[in-house]
């Protein structure tokens, strides 16, 4: 129970972190650099999973991706497959819960990049895309990495939305937080202890790493 849950958690969280690292940076960039009317409303909607109970986020994810969900029904009728009760579903749940952290961090990191450097790049005839990769991204890198590390930690601890969308199938969708819950309610206290210790250690390590990254950004 411990080892499969550990492996699965690592897989789910790694895939989710890579996805939201890319998507979150893109959304953060749009929010930081573009001006449009519903900007703060978009930010608020993207932040929702951070403040809503995870079960509510999970409920919305089921409405979207369940076998009869708004998007899920098309996936199901095309492929006969559905996100519900799969490890990919756990990725979506963990990703949705951690995305706000990534978007917030990315927006702050990208906003802190002095626009004059970008202007110089534009004036030298570089496109926005090239400017992003060669000027903006390197200057915002530390803040972005800190966001990625924090998102990783949040995804690692995801419980409620995962339980609702991916269920609790040992070896298939039972990540570490779910395994702790099941071990606890079925009286297997030792397993719960071991898993809780692993998660605690991993979380301390992530926060420590984030602190180091953000501190050296300030002194740089």
């Amino acid at each position: 129970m411990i080892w499969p849950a550990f492996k699965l958690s690592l897989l789910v969280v790694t895939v989710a972190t890579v996805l939201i690292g890319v998507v979150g940076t893109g959304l953060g960039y749009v929010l930081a650099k573009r001006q449009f009317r519903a900007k703060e409303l978009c930010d608020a909607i993207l932040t929702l999973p951070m403040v809503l109970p995870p079960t509510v986020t999970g409920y919305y994810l089921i409405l979207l991706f369940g076998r009869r969900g708004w998007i899920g029904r098309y996936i199901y009728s095309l492929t006969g497959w559905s996100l519900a009760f799969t490890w990919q579903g756990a990725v979506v749940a963990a990703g949705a819960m951690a995305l706000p952290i990534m978007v917030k961090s990315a927006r702050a990191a990208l906003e802190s990049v002095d626009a004059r450097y970008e202007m110089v790049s534009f004036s030298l005839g570089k496109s926005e895309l090239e400017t992003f990769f060669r000027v903006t991204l390197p200057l915002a890198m530390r803040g972005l990495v800190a966001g990625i590390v924090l998102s990783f930690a949040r995804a690692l601890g995801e419980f409620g939305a995962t339980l609702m969308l991916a269920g609790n199938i040992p070896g298939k969708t039972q990540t570490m937080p779910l395994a702790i819950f099941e071990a606890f309610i079925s009286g297997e206290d030792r397993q719960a202890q071991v898993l809780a210790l692993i998660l605690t250690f991993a979380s301390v390590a992530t926060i420590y790493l984030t602190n180091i990254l953000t501190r050296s950004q300030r002194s740089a």
Partner: protein
Amino acid sequence: MKKHPGQRSAALLLSLLIPLLLDGKPAHPTSAQAREIVVAAAISLSEAFNEIGRLYHQRTGDSVTFSFASSGELEKQIEAGAPVDVFASAGQKEMDQLQAKQLIDQSTRADFARNTLVLVVPTGSKAAPHSFTELQGPSVQRIAIGDPKTVPAGQYAEQLLRNMQLWPKVEPRLVLALNVRQVLDYVVREEVEAGIVYATDVNIAKGKATVVASAPDQDYGPILYPIAVVKDSSGAQAARGFVNLVRSPDGVRILAKYGFLAPK
């Protein structure tokens, strides 16, 4: 800082909301006479027990607070010292474990209801099986049962599938739910092709879930629900009153209304 145009409307919204929050009745009854008991009950009992709870309140003035979950989860909560006065379980195992730890008043323990298992499928589904044996067929991808570790309905379902020699084929398709009502919910939402629940559960999903097979209870059962007063109960007198009401003709009548059978 420049004032954001949204700030004023946000302040207005808050000033409208706050009176709403402050309004309302006091949370606790002022009368010192009315007591409250907490009943932890298997989630399959929820409709029947809510009705018995209303009757109990009418007759005694005391209020009943229910905590519905899987029997295994409730057992662990009581072991951990949850402030519970009465425990009603869907399985004997959970009650036995509390009794072995001397956490229930043994003299109050009694079986008060019986149930059976059925196979349910989403109404109108094409991929759905028509019998327990068809669960091993190719059109069935996922079958929901309660998690046998904590859900008695799941323990009975596992027993049934093992006795029918279906377990090895069916096991990789299982989705384990936290309680029996979640199994039913998975079926209603068509996330699974079939689920195994109690005969009494199906009434709450009328029209959305269809029973395609019933299983005779010699294959897994009998499913007998025990009830007992918890030893640490702060209101043991009232708790006994509730247990007696459940076992009285009125309690039996309400249980029968929701499909529960009398214990053998």
